[in-house]
């Protein structure tokens, strides 16, 4: 695969945008720290034009080679019109974007941008085409959610791909449903809302925000359960447990039996 192509642009414009962006960053930072550090920095009140400009600069540098200069999409990447801030935040905060190797599925990898930069790109994409917004901290807080309903929804609509304990699973042609062990509540919410890659969309009219919170509560509760015996064995169920018991246990017993019946040479 070819490397990321740097677009030719006018230097002066670039510096202007950068300066504007830095100024905006400073202002936002000052505002946020002055307010005592809210949990979600970029969402309240909506993004400023400076954020959007900064997001546009980052987008042009790192995203436009595949998604096009105006996010209209190219042969290498889909159009981002209408995907919304939630999709951008999901893809960039899980490290899937910017993509490096284009395989059957974009893997989760270390994040390359700060939360603030990601929110700026999200604001720019949202400014271009609208779409679902990044959920607030209160929307994804699992405290007080209906765990039973969350479990029922998860088992009926999520578990077939993501495994009943969120351990992930295989799909067709090398694609896979990733494990949910590292997903933050915000990312789980955004994935349901936007349907990244092969995942279906679970819109707010079908699975309401409250029910999404229930599902998040179920996932975070199940993955926090202790592992009896100290090993999770992938949490894919009795098959691995039986296999480990069989291969490990039987092999051990066979060696014990061999040792017991081994003939000792009489000197």
């Amino acid at each position: 695969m070819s490397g990321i192509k740097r677009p030719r642009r006018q230097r002066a414009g670039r510096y202007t945008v950068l300066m504007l962006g830095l100024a905006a960053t400073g202002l936002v930072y000052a505002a946020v720290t002055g307010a005592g550090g809210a949990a979600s920095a970029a969402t309240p009140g909506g993004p400023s034009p400076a954020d959007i400009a900064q997001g546009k600069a980052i987008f042009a540098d790192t995203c436009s080679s595949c998604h096009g200069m105006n996010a209209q999409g190219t042969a290498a990447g889909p159009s981002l019109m209408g995907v919304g801030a939630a999709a951008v935040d999901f893809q960039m905060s899980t490290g899937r974007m910017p993509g490096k190797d284009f395989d059957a599925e974009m893997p989760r990898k270390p994040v390359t941008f700060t939360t603030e930069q990601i929110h700026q790109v999200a604001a720019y994409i949202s400014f271009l085409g609208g779409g679902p917004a990044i959920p607030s901290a209160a929307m994804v807080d699992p405290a007080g959610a209906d765990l039973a309903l969350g479990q029922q929804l998860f088992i009926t609509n999520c578990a077939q791909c993501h495994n009943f304990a969120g351990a992930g699973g295989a799909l067709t042609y090398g694609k896979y449903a990733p494990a949910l062990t590292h997903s933050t509540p915000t990312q789980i919410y955004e994935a349901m809302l936007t349907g990244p890659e092969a995942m279906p969309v679970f819109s707010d009219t079908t699975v309401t925000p409250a029910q999404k919170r229930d599902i998040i509560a179920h996932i975070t509760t199940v993955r926090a359960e202790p592992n009896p015996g100290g090993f999770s064995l992938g949490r894919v169920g009795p098959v691995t447990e039986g296999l480990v018991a069989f291969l490990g246990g039987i092999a051990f017993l066979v060696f014990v039996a061999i040792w017991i019946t081994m003939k000792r040479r009489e000197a």
Partner: protein
Amino acid sequence: MHGSGEQFPPGDGAEELPESRAPHRVIGTPPPARARTLLEAPPQEDRRPERWLPAEPSNLDQAKRAERLVAALFILSMLASIGFVAAYVGLEVHSVVATQRSNLALGVSMSVAFGALAVGVVIWVRYLMPKVELTEERKPLASSPKDRAEFDKDFTEGAEASGFVKRPLLRRTLIAASVPLAVAPLVILRDLGPLPGTSLRHTVWRKGLRLLVFGPNTPLRPADFAIPGQMITVVPDGYQDNLDALAKAATIIIKFGPGQLRPPTVMNWTVDGIVAYSKICTHVGCPVALYEQTTHNILCPCHQSTFDATRGAKVIFGPAARPLPQLPLGTDAEGFLVATSDYHEPVGPSFWERG
């Protein structure tokens, strides 16, 4: 093969290796005395070989060490057994944590008790007992002729004494008593039925039943399900808690953009690009709902049967033999999604009379 035939011409081999091969025998002649048979062995005197067992182990130092080790293991086992009793009596079990602690103590002490005993016995056998090969001849299976004659006599005497032959009334009533007893299990087995009849051909879906999102049990309007790539599991209104009914009636609905659905999908049975398929795989009935919105494949997690959701859930890979049945959809007066009839073919795996 040819070369070996030249080296060992037929006839010579038997003479050279008399021990390893049974001698040739003409059919109908009595077996030679050496033949290995378990029946009718000629009475023989006890000719067990003299046993010779070494009085002392060959390595006395090692034996001494082994003896001390075994004794230590036995004492450890004894202490663990006492510990087991102590843990059973002493540890509280009236809360989950306390029960876990008690189980841990009981399990560990019992494992140590049995384990130390077993390891001690094995070391005893391996390092202290003599290691010599002993051969014991198999005894004949048949009882001695005298015993058999006696049994024969006893049996005949008993039969005579019971009068089973002499008293036909008793014999017949005994047989009459045993026949219904033998038939009784068949009556019990009858309760495995009744035969399924036509129930495998129908589900509880019928005209006008609303589709409810399973879990919150909310009905859906087409406008609530308007984003292409959406998928959700639905159940028939009124049957959301009836697991017997849901075993056949579970359904998934998928939203497609304009022009994505193609034959053999029945377009009259869709509403605004929303299509409903049975969630029960036609292979062996697993819940099949791994829908990929990029490829529109529906994958079954059990045996990887893959269905193309855009083309009437036609099978494109895997062991399933038939497409997933499509549920006819419509909307009711209030605009909610409803079924317009039951499935037009049996859902789920094949069965004998399906044809």
